[in-house]
């Protein structure tokens, strides 16, 4: 008898709760765009935050609501952008992947630190506390604030200067934000010719502190046939839209501070 009664009570409670759930479910139903779920499925899902949103869920919502572009995920790159674009019914603009580039060549062989700094071993702590660790007032300190900021293990301090691993870099720009001297720039992946220096000091002063610095001699500007490199504030800068990767500027640079294009051969050898 007790068994039967128990079963009956449980069943009745079950039915009441079940109807209650169905009712509240209908009553408080929130319209979810199924595209959001679909977009979320396409995104890599490692919540790196490189897009600028709080993880992939937030990114998917932002794409669907139009706040973020369909190719806004730097990790996924073009394949993910194409899938997302298909879901959203648009086409992904063909945006090239960007990679971080450290505009400093000042490793321990070419420049030196001044004094013996023994404070907190972190670039931001040194620079914001007004401690000039390096002789060059623009160069890489080499304590690796960028290394700590990188979610993809794509930047390392090698011999006192930060170096980007171009294959691993997803172009999220977190290292660029972490660098207190703003040495890191995002450049299109196919462009290999860049100026590896940020010093806006005059030539003789640069030479005093670093043997690999840009002295603003404008030799590169004279070599360039495509109006792709200019000297402002004693510092050469590449205009990537115009650059055709011929490498003539890099070859003539007296301080060898311009990076050479991939597979660059001297013109004599190629003719």
């Amino acid at each position, binding site marked *: 008898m007790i068994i039967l009664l128990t079963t009956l009570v449980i069943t009745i409670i079950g039915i009441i709760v079940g109807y209650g759930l169905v009712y509240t479910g209908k009553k408080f139903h929130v319209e979810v765009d199924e595209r959001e779920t679909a977009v979320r499925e396409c995104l890599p899902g490692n919540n790196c935050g490189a897009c600028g949103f709080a993880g992939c869920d937030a990114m998917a919502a932002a794409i669907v609501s139009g706040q973020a572009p369909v190719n806004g995920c730097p990790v996924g790159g073009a394949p993910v952008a194409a899938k997302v674009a298909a879901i959203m019914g648009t086409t992904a603009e063909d945006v090239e992947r960007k990679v971080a580039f450290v505009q400093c060549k000042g490793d321990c062989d070419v420049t030196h630190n*001044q*004094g*013996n700094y*023994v*404070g*907190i071993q972190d670039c*931001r*702590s040194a620079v*914001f*506390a*007004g*401690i*000039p660790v390096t002789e060059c*007032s623009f160069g890489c300190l080499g304590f690796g604030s960028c290394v700590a900021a990188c979610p993809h293990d794509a930047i390392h301090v090698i011999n006192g200067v930060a170096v980007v691993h171009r294959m691993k870099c997803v172009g999220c720009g977190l290292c660029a934000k972490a660098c207190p001297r703003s040495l890191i720039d995002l450049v299109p992946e196919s462009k290999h010719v860049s100026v590896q220096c940020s010093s806006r*000091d*005059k030539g003789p*002063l640069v030479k005093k502190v670093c043997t690999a610095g840009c002295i603003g001699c404008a030799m590169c500007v004279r070599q360039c046939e495509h109006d792709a490199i200019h000297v402002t504030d004693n510092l050469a800068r590449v205009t990537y839209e115009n650059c055709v990767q011929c490498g003539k500027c890099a070859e003539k640079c007296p301080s060898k501070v311009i990076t050479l294009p991939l597979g660059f051969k001297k013109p004599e050898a190629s003719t």
Partner: protein
Amino acid sequence: MKNTFRGGVHPISHKELTRDVPLRVLNAKGEMVFPLLQHIGKPAKPLVKKGDEVLAGQKIGEADGLISAHVISSCSGKVKAVEKRRVQNGQMVECIVVDNDGQYSRMEGIGVRQDISSLSKEEILRRIREAGIVGLGGAGFPTHVKLSPKNPDAIRYVIANGSECEPYLTGTDQLMRSQADSIAEGLSLMLRLFPNAEGVIVIEDNKPEAIEAMRKASAGNDKLSVLAAKAKYGQGGEKMLIETVAGINYPSSMLPAEVGCIVQNACTIYAIDRAVAYLEPLFTHTFTLTGDAVKTPGNFIVRDGMSFSELIEAAGGLKEGAVVKKAIVGGPIMGIAIPNLDVPIQKTSSGVALVTVDQSEVAASIMTSCLRCGRCTTVCPVGLLPQMLADAVQAGDLERYEKKLYGLECIQCGCCSYICPAKRPLTQTFMRTKAEILAQKRAAVGGKK
């Protein structure tokens, strides 16, 4: 008036090395370098160019804008170059380099006693501005700006800071002993700018001779008084002096003038007296050369522009076999370690300590985890909770740092780092975080425009 403030630490003072050595004048031989930025504010504009002849006391850099100060040549000779040179804080700054002819021919009229009884307020301020005087305590804030508050009638106290609480430094002590009359006169000159104020000279009680001398010098003037404060590091801070004298605590968003106080270092007041009563611009100042690496430590009157290495040589050089591990300018706690000794002495260099202690015993001690002992809280003179602030920084919670824990009130005095048994670099952390928050704020303001 209390005679002390809340918090503070008692480091070993090392003042016994130099405290009884009288001031001696030192002249430089070689080239003199005058940085155009020796103060807080905009760099001065150069008035001379390569090849020009200059005289001692000549204005060679013109103040640019309101918060800026003139730069004065301390020697006579020919301008060798106007170029970027490294200065004591390690930065490259535009400097005027003068080839010193060793004559020290002065401009006419400098050092002649003037009749100061009927000077107007404007004239006093003009002379101070023309003399290029900045705060000689170390920060280098232009003095004429500090002495021109919006509410001169509401100023109740003009405080002469003779506390010199940093270890090693004794220059101000010696100046007060030997030039007490001048300092008292300078202080009464400042009181003329503020009719309702009284002058208080604060001296730590470990300088009885200076207290005696200043008491004697200010005896005839009932507007001046000498306050013997308890000797404790932190006393020389502006906020601590105002707490000691007026009993007022005020937030960092307010200026001392807004709470009715003006604080000037005793050396600055001496410079004011020289400028107003003798028309002598600021090109010499007191300097303490000390530390266990120096053969004859002492107090000197040095000319701006000579290099530290030249000064050390002129003063007798280093002890034999001594290796300088750190050279700290402006006191070992708030001062800065200079990377090399070939940088020029500037207006704000109050002394240098050359120490041979191995660096591993000083700054590079191994940091351990916070013990929660709370000593940093007991010594913080502004009443902050340093260990909580450091936690907030570690968690990256800058909002908590600023809004809940009032981290921007930190005066970077270094008491918390000094006392911390776990050797945590608290002060540097706060320096950095404050700078970051202020940079963010500036960016936000710039963005709105």
